[in-house]
C-alpha cells in the first residue's frame, strides 16, 4: 500500500474510533472477559459461558430462531406503527378542536394510569394467544403514551411563534398547524418516540411470556422450563440488541429530520 492510502486509512480509523466508542468497546470486552471468568467458576445453570450461550442456543433453537425473531419484530413494528399513528392523530385532533379535547380528556386521563402489562390476561381472554392480541396490546400502550406526549408537545410550542405567525398573516388554523406547530413538535415527538420504542419491546416481551406460540419471549419461557439458562440469556441478548438497534435508528431519524433545530452539541 502506498503511503497515501495508509495515511487515509489512519485518518478514517481515528475519526471512526472516537474516545466514546473506544470506552464503550473496551467495557464490552472487559465484561465479556469477566463473563467468561465467572462462568468457569459458577455452575452452568447460573451463568453459562458466552460460548455456551451462543453456540448451544443456536444448536438447540436454530430451526425456530428465524421465525421467532421475525414474529417478535413484526409484532413490535405493527404495534408501534398502529399505536403511534392513532396516538399522534388523537393528540393533534385534541389540540385542533376544543370539543374533541373536552370529550376525550376524561377518557385519556382515566386510561393513563392503567398499567399496560396488567391488561395482558384480559387481552388473552379476548383475543387468544394469536397475533392480533399482542399487536393490539403493544398498539394500546404506544397509543396512550403518544397521545400524552403529542399533547404536551403542542402545549409547549412557544406562543410567541404562534402570535408571530398570526401577525405575519397566517389566519387559518390549518396554516398555523402546518407552518408552526408541526415543525415545532417534531423534536419532542421523536424524543418521546425513543422511550416509546423501548417500552414497546417490553410490552412485546411480557405478552410473549404470558401466552404465545412463537417469538423470542416464547423461546425464553420455554427455555426456562427446561432450565436452559443459556437460551434465556440468549433471548435477553436478542431483545436488548434489537432494542438498541431500534433506539439508534430513531436517534438517526432524529438527527436527519431535526437538522434545523437549535440543539446544543449532542452528548
Amino acid at each position, binding site marked *: 500500500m502506498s503511503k497515501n492510502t495508509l495515511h487515509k486509512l489512519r485518518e478514517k480509523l481515528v475519526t471512526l474510533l472516537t474516545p466514546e466508542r473506544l470506552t464503550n468497546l473496551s*467495557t464490552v470486552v472487559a465484561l465479556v472477559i469477566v463473563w467468561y471468568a465467572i462462568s468457569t467458576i459458577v455452575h452452568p445453570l447460573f451463568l453459562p459461558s458466552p460460548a455456551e450461550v451462543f453456540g448451544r442456543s443456536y444448536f438447540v433453537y436454530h430451526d425456530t430462531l428465524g421465525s421467532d425473531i421475525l414474529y417478535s419484530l413484526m409484532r413490535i413494528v405493527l404495534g408501534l406503527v398502529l399505536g403511534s399513528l392513532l396516538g399522534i392523530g388523537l393528540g393533534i385532533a385534541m389540540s385542533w378542536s376544543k*370539543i374533541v379535547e373536552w370529550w376525550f380528556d376524561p*377518557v385519556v386521563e382515566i386510561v393513563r*394510569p392503567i398499567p399496560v402489562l396488567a391488561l395482558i390476561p*384480559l387481552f388473552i*381472554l379476548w383475543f387468544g394467544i394469536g397475533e392480533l392480541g399482542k399487536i393490539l396490546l403493544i398498539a394500546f400502550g404506544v397509543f396512550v403514551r403518544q397521545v400524552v406526549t403529542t399533547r404536551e408537545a403542542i402545549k409547549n410550542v412557544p406562543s410567541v411563534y404562534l402570535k408571530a405567525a398570526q401577525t405575519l398573516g397566517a389566519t387559518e388554523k390549518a396554516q398555523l398547524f402546518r407552518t408552526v406547530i408541526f415543525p415545532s413538535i417534531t423534536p419532542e415527538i421523536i424524543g418521546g418516540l425513543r422511550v416509546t420504542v423501548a417500552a414497546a419491546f417490553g410490552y412485546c416481551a411480557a405478552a410473549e411470556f404470558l401466552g404465545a406460540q412463537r417469538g423470542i*419471549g416464547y423461546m425464553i419461557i420455554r427455555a426456562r422450563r427446561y432450565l436452559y439458562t443459556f437460551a434465556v440469556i440468549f433471548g435477553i441478548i436478542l431483545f436488548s440488541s434489537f432494542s438498541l438497534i431500534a433506539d439508534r435508528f430513531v436517534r438517526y431519524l432524529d438527527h436527519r429530520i431535526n437538522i434545523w433545530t437549535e440543539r446544543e452539541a449532542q452528548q
Partner: protein
Amino acid sequence: MKGWKMLRNFLTLRKILGLFSVVTAVLVWYILSMVVPPIFIPGPEEVFKGSYNLYKPILAASIVSTLLRVIVGFLIGSILGILVAFAMAWNKFIQWTLDPIIELIRPIPVIALIPLFILWIGLGETPRILIIVFASFVVLVVSTREAIKNVPTVCLNAARTLGASTKGRVFRTIILPAITPEIIAGIKIAAAASFDLAAAAEFIGAQRGLGYIIINAKQFLYTNGVIFGIFLFSLLAWLASLLIRYFDRRINVWTEREAA
C-alpha cells in the same frame, strides 16, 4: 337566584362534555355487556359486585402484598439510582467506569429479565422485588445524570464567582435544587414502570397479590375478576401518581413553571 348562577358558572361546557363522555362510556359498556357473551364483556355490576364478593377475604392482603412489592422495590431502586448518579457526577473516575455499563444496560427490556431472575433466585418474593429495584434504578440513574448534565453552567460559574469554593457547596446549593424537577419527572416514570413490572412479575408465578387475582381469574375464565383486578391496579397507580404530583407541587414551588 344566586345558587343558580353559581351552578351555571360551575357547569362549563368543558365539564358537561367531560361528564357526558364518561357517562356515554359507561352506557356503552352496559349495552355491550348485554349483547356480547359475558366471557368477553361482563356488565359493570357483575364486575364490581361479583368480584368484590368473591375476593373479599383476600382483597386486603392482596392489595397490601402488591403495594409492598412496588413500594419497597421502587424506594430501594430510586434511592440507589439517585445516589449512584450523584457519585458519578462527583467523581470522574466513577463516571468513567460506570457510564458505559449503564449505557449497555439501558436497552435491556427489564421485563425480559424476569425469567432469568426466577432461574437464579427461585420463585420467591426476591426476584419480583429485584426486578422493580432494577427498573427504578436504571430510570433514576439516567434521569438524574441527564438532570445534572443539564444544569446551566452559568449558574455553576456564578456560584463559584460568589465564593462557593468546595465541590460540596456547589453541589448542595446549586445542583441539588436545580435537578429536583427532573428527578421528580424520573420518579413519575419509575413509579409507573414499577406498577407495570409488579403486574407482570405477579403474573409469572405469584401466590399472592393483585396480579395473582388477575391471573387466577383468567385461568378460570372469570373475566369479571380480571377486569376487577385491572381496575384495582389502575386505582393504585393513579393514587400513587396523585401523591407524587402533590409532592411535586410542594417541593417545586419555586420553579419557573407556567400554570400546570
